[in-house]
């Protein structure tokens, strides 16, 4: 792709610098100048130019070749013998995309002793489930899973492949993409089909300060990792019918180059991971002492919530690193987020500002967390939180 600017034709109307999202066009005398380090050839300038002085020559899309690729696939992650909830969320979304394209939803279920879940994926909306069930896939390894996924994709030619943007999903998808020479969009929060039947992948960038729409115009399949908890799984339809196909994928032990020697759980008994929780109770420096974490933990128990921490709380070793919310920790988007004694620094907000409902408790009325909280209480968390716990208990006993 190249951009050709015809200086002769240009009338200097200065429309194009106004529409350039990337600051790539600047005024240059009574003409303009393009900064190709910034230009992404998005075509906005070409569209507005009244005299056709800007032309973008795009690679010809091989329509026939692209038309061979059909169906929306979801690579369903399993962990500890179960299908992760993000898989159901993605099958639900895949159904919408596939209906739009009038194509099928295919769920890929790789694991060991997990075939019994195939039915549930059909009930969730899949037309077909490809089941790879073998001891070689009992635990996630990059090598084995990459071989399995690429060997399924390559001959069957799906149009779209979705992965959950979990730790393993984001380890696997780029490996598969690189092996097949494909584009991959990370951590999408929105997916749509446009009028050219292309997948529009919407994702945050620059720590959520901007959103971007990304396309994959020339190659198939179009692949994305999709953030958990963004799409809600719809109710399962137990009467739905679909086909289940068992596929054998041969793995030779020498192909697996990493060996998991040990697995260590850091979460205390009953503590939930923050990525997948519907409710998170997150504490900041305002909690003051690790012994005080019993308070948010009690609140969390009542709400079946995960316990999280801001960076200082994790840095101090009061909670394991897996529980840190924010730029250098994890991005979360639960239905309900409690920020207790957290100031709301931008690096923290980046990790949680897309939560459905945010509640903040902070002594300082000026704390930036209040700028984004749906419900803020200015007060001492050691007084407010016990009161909230009490109210919740009352409510629960009434129900």
């Amino acid at each position, binding site marked *: 792709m190249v951009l050709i600017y015809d200086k002769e034709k240009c009338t200097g109307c200065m429309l194009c610098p106004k529409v350039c999202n990337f600051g790539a066009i600047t005024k240059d005398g009574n003409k303009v100048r393009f900064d190709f380090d910034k230009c992404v050839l998005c075509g906005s300038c070409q569209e507005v130019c009244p005299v056709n002085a800007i032309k973008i020559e795009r690679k010809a899309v091989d329509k026939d070749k692209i038309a061979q690729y059909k169906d929306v696939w979801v690579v369903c992650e399993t962990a500890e013998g179960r299908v992760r909830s993000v898989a159901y969320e993605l099958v639900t979304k895949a159904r919408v995309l596939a209906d739009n394209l009038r194509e099928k939803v295919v769920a890929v279920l790789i694991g060991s002793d997990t075939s019994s879940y195939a039915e549930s994926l059909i009930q969730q909306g899949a037309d077909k489930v490809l089941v790879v069930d073998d001891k070689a896939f009992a635990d996630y390894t990059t090598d084995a899973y990459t071989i399995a996924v690429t060997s399924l994709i390559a001959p069957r030619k799906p149009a779209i492949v979705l992965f959950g943007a979990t730790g393993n999903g984001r380890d696997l998808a780029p490996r598969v993409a690189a092996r097949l020479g494909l584009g991959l*969009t990370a951590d999408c929060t929105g997916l749509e089909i446009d009028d050219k039947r292309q997948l529009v992948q919407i994702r945050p960038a620059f720590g959520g300060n901007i959103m971007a729409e990304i396309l994959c115009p020339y190659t198939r399949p179009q692949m994305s990792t999709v953030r958990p908890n963004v799409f809600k799984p719809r109710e399962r339809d137990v009467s739905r019918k679909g086909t289940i196909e068992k596929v054998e994928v041969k793995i030779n032990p020498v192909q697996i180059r990493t060996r998991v020697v040990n697995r*260590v759980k850091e979460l205390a008994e009953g503590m939930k991971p923050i990525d997948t929780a519907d409710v998170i109770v997150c504490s900041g420096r305002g909690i003051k002492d690790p012994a005080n974490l019993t308070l948010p933990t009690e609140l969390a128990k009542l709400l079946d919530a995960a316990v999280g921490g801001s960076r200082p709380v994790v840095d101090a070793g009061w909670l394991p690193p897996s529980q840190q919310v924010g730029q250098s920790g994890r991005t979360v988007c639960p239905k309900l987020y409690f920020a207790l004694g957290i100031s709301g620094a931008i690096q923290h907000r980046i990790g949680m500002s897309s939560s459905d409902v945010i509640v903040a408790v902070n002594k300082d009325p000026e704390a930036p967390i209040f700028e984004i909280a749906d419900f803020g209480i200015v007060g001492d968390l050691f007084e407010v939180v016990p009161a909230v716990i009490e109210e919740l208990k009352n409510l629960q006993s009434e129900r």
Partner: protein
Amino acid sequence: MDTSGCTFMKVIVPVKQVPEVAEVRINPETGTLIREGVPSILNPFDEYAVEAAIQLKEKLGGEVTVVTMGPPQAKEVLLKALAMGADKAILLTDRAFAGADTWATARTLSEQIKKMEYDLVICGKQAIDGDTAQVGPEIAELLGIPQVCYVRHLEVEEDGKFVVVHRGTDEGYEVVRVKLPALLTATKGLNEPRLPNIMGIMKAKKKPLEEVTVTTLGISPDSIGLKGSPTTVRKVFAPERRKGGIKIEGTDPKAAAKKLVEFLASKGAI
């Protein structure tokens, strides 16, 4: 250097210059990215990678090379890494590299790395501008070596042929053993990156810094940069800004708690 009794480790660290993302905004009137006045930094996750590489060198003997692909000013992050203690730097800079997505970035970097000797490649977990975490695994695949992502702890076995790492997972971590050469991505917890001191900064300027262009890399311009990128950005826009809602001040905790619980119930959040 006397390396007898040591395992000489050659480590390559791909590093990226990123804007301080907290300050990148969209101009609400024009809908354009505001980058002016936004400072550039060494990607924080890459600092862990550089530090890890330097620590290996200090412990076992070896050599650390930092590589970046970017505009000429990306040299700054190479100088920072050299000041921390890296030995050599490579700046891949050429107009033709610009506009690369993760695939084209990984292609370019892996072409460079293929020309070098290495035991380990250590990337950052992700670059904080795009937050993709894809370039590391893509480089590993293109080099044909194994990868372990989200590394929080790193040890080299005595013979220098294997590393044992802790890989962060949702529930805790896995202890993973992998044969070298391998690619790791570094995350928080791996170490505390050092700050360059004055001596380091002075020495950095004298360390070898090689510039590489498309021609010297010997790669087809069609497979790199914007042209070689399978994905394209169609549009950027400002996310809906979240606004604060109810804020209760000066109420006694009991009353405030009551209001909160009513609010949550009305929202269906509890």
